[in-house]
């Protein structure tokens, strides 16, 4: 599917394949018991990104004009980086390994004491909003700043009457 997205000239089909891939990724997250992440992937990856990409296609064209030729050096760099990333995954602990560093640092404390300290059944929310509230503040700031940046680039501050004239 990834190769299809990379080689397709019909960008509309590529966007649809992106959406399908996001849904498959969401299904993978569900099988890994990460329902919150799956929810986010399904709504953001498959929902909003697809809509925004379709909106972009409506502004430009739904066909790529000519497929660029494969250049040797960037292709080799991409293959090497991919190989290095796959090689690094061999060092990761197995999925669900109780001895993994992620499960031995602060996670046991969160799991054991968030019931008394915060009293919310969903520990993901407790960690996201309370224990790691500062990180979430950063994330919201990133979304806000990114949105403002895109609005500035697209010229959203035009008076709406001018926009209406241009539409006609």
């Amino acid at each position, binding site marked *: 599917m990834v190769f299809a997205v990379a080689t397709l000239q019909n960008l509309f089909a590529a966007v649809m394949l992106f959406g399908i891939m996001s849904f498959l990724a969401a299904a993978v997250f569900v099988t890994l018991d990460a329902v*919150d992440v799956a*929810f986010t992937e399904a709504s953001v990856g498959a929902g909003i990104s697809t*809509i925004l990409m379709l*909106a972009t296609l409506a502004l430009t064209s739904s066909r790529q004009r000519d497929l660029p030729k494969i250049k040797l050096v960037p292709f080799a760099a991409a293959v090497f980086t991919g190989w290095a990333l796959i090689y690094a995954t061999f060092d990761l602990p197995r999925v669900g390994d109780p001895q993994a560093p992620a499960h031995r640092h602060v996670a046991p404390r969160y799991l054991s004491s968030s019931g008394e*300290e915060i009293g919310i059944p*969903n520990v993901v929310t407790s960690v996201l*909003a309370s224990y790691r509230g500062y990180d979430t*503040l950063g994330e919201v700031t990133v*979304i806000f700043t990114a949105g403002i940046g895109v609005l500035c680039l697209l010229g*959203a501050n035009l008076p709406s009457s001018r926009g209406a004239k241009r539409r006609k």
Partner: protein
Amino acid sequence: MQHHVVLRVVSKLLIPMILLFALYVQFHGDYGPGGGFQAGVIFGAGFILYGIVFGLDTVQQVMSPKAMRMLAACGLLLYGLVGVAGPLLGANFLDYRVLLDNPVSGQHLGISLIELGVGMTVAAVMVSLFYAFARRR
């Protein structure tokens, strides 16, 4: 899209449910999967669907672009103010335990408020992006 009767009727039925589901995800995030990010995106998707089917001018009568930008800023501001309330009441930044007399209730209140802020910002930014894309057409 004014002449697509099926789309108009189906989306008229679906949009209230989408918005209601977004509110459910927002306020049920403490108990099940969900939270501000997901709720904001779903809420924004409801607005975007309305805008696609009924036209940009109709949806902008509901929420003008300026109001959306204000909402985005207000969400982040709400998050920040809840964070600053901690130091004002003699605790650390983003420490919700001091918001109410009972530390656990304080945590509940703080988490609900910041999730609301997250949802407002995410929904408003998504809809603003859609407005910006759609207006250039």
